């Protein structure tokens, strides 16, 4: 048989993670409710959803920290449903909060984690030094982890997660609770790891983070996956649309209705007091709109084009307002 005759199905490598109808209940509540998805080797896959959506439970199920009630999990070709420990040597896990030893130094923590994967003394010391350098923690290597800042702790936890060079890295909310600078550094590290060929499964409730980092995303809400697609596919419908946000002072109460009846080819929406959103599949001429508004005694203070973002797609698909996600950010998000 010549190579061209080989079917495309045969050419496609098996996904590194295969999840089918996975369900996990806590009492009567389904934390994860019949989810199915695949992650290909080398992919950076995002799991996006609000707090309590089932992201961490999914990671726990995939990494052997929890047992599913129903469904199946295959990681690196191994069935993990009967034996959750089967694939643990292939995976690295970075939980949302550090699970390292505060009483050990950064260097000792890394060496200890390497030993858990059977690395010999010489190799684990070499690898620990390499990672401490790569993560900018060389100076703090021999300080106890208890005195590290949050950002340093998170970096050390990521270093511990990759000390054994795993094929798959699970990152649970990697930038939650750390400052903006550290978050940016961490995102760069994640990109670097991905470029080096590590398959990454990332959970986040930051829409922008998912958009910046991931190739493919699953939206998870209340334990169910509501949409899985590449960033391009997700953005396509909103990118075909032109949108503008017009800020208006001294708004007459009937402005929205009047605009809608006068500009029937445009989608007009009053998003909040003094803010009018205009959507169209064609280009929007701003002049007639501004003139129309000002003729009614209002003043246009600002008009700007809205760049289509994943946030809009998320709101459309999940019905969860971006404001609710921002509120979560306020509670747990990066410090300004």
């Amino acid at each position, binding site marked *: 048989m010549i190579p061209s005759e080989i079917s495309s199905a045969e050419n496609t490598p098996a996904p590194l993670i295969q999840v089918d109808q996975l369900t996990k209940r*806590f009492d009567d509540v389904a934390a994860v409710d019949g989810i199915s998805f695949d992650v290909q080797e080398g992919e950076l896959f995002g799991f996006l959803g609000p707090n309590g959506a089932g992201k961490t439970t999914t990671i726990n199920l995939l*990494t*052997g*920290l*929890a*047992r599913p009630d129903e469904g199946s999990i295959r990681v690196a070709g191994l069935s993990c449903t009967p034996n*959750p*420990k089967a694939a*643990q*040597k292939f*995976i690295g*896990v970075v*939980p949302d*909060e*550090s*699970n*390292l*030893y*505060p*009483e*050990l130094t950064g260097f000792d923590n890394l060496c*200890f*984690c390497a*030993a*858990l*994967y*059977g*690395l*010999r003394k010489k190799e684990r010391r070499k690898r620990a030094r390499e990672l401490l350098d790569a993560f900018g923690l060389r100076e703090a290597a021999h300080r106890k982890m208890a005195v590290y800042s949050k950002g340093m702790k998170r970096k050390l936890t990521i270093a*511990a997660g990759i000390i054994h060079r795993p094929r798959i890295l699970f990152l649970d909310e990697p930038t939650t609770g750390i400052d903006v600078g550290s978050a940016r550094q961490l995102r760069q590290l994640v990109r670097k790891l991905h470029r080096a060929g590590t398959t990454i499964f990332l959970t986040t409730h930051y829409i922008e983070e998912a958009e910046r980092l991931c190739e493919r995303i699953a939206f998870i809400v209340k334990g169910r996956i509501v949409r899985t697609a590449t960033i391009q596919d997700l953005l396509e419908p909103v990118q075909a649309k032109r949108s503008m946000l017009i800020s208006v002072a001294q708004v007459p109460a009937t402005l929205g209705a009047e605009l809608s009846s006068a500009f029937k080819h445009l989608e007009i929406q009053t998003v909040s007091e003094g803010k009018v959103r205009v959507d169209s599949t064609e280009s929007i001429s701003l002049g007639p709109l501004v003139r129309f508004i000002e003729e009614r005694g209002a003043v246009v203070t600002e008009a700007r084009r809205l760049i289509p973002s994943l946030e809009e797609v998320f709101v459309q698909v999940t019905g969860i307002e971006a404001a609710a996600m921002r509120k979560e950010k306020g509670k747990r998000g990066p410090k300004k």
Partner: protein
Amino acid sequence: MNRWVAYWNIMVKDMLTYYLKPPNISWGLIFPVAWTGMFFIKSGRGAESIPALLPGVMAVSILFGTTSMLAVTVTFEKKNRSFQRLLLAPVPLELLMLAKTSGAILFGSLNALVPVVLALFLADLSQVSWLTIFPAVVLIAMVSTFQGLFIAVSVSEVFEAQTFSNFFRFPMIFLCGLFFPIDALPIYLQPLSYLVPLTYGADILHGAIFQNNIMPLAVDFLVITFFCLALFYFSLKNIHKKWII
């Protein structure tokens, strides 16, 4: 992958982080000396009475040396999530828990040697069967450690682990026949004595030092081994049930 690299490093880390710390070392030295001194003074006899105190002091040193730290450290690691790091390692749970308990077993066994070394300088121990003493010390250390493990995996807070450890330890000391012969206990308490693993350990120690064991040594070794296996098995079952939910 060499799982024994993981085993060795977990044990060494626990020894260095928890057991071989100044407060524990001083406890390991002071505790047996204080107990020996207390019974020695109370007996009102000379140095010849020291061997009579040896089984009790050895057993109590092991019991406290093992259970005090293990129950607390496992609960503490579970609480601060570092135990999760161990559960994520590609090491079978049985080996993982054996590694976690080995430090305590070793520390408990070393604690038992403190009164023995002291007694060597003060009394004639020529009648002691050392070949029986050493495996007995290790088995008592194992059974006490697994008891600590069983408590640790049954509770969720550090203070609960401490409370439960004392709840079991103190009655055990008085029920196991170390300081009061079992047949001198009230009749309704005697059956309880035979449910306490330390009773069999104490009997081996009495047998090894004075040849006055009340049960055949083979039975003592068998029963204490059975307790070790049962406690370890139920601890693992509890971890599966409560920690890998």
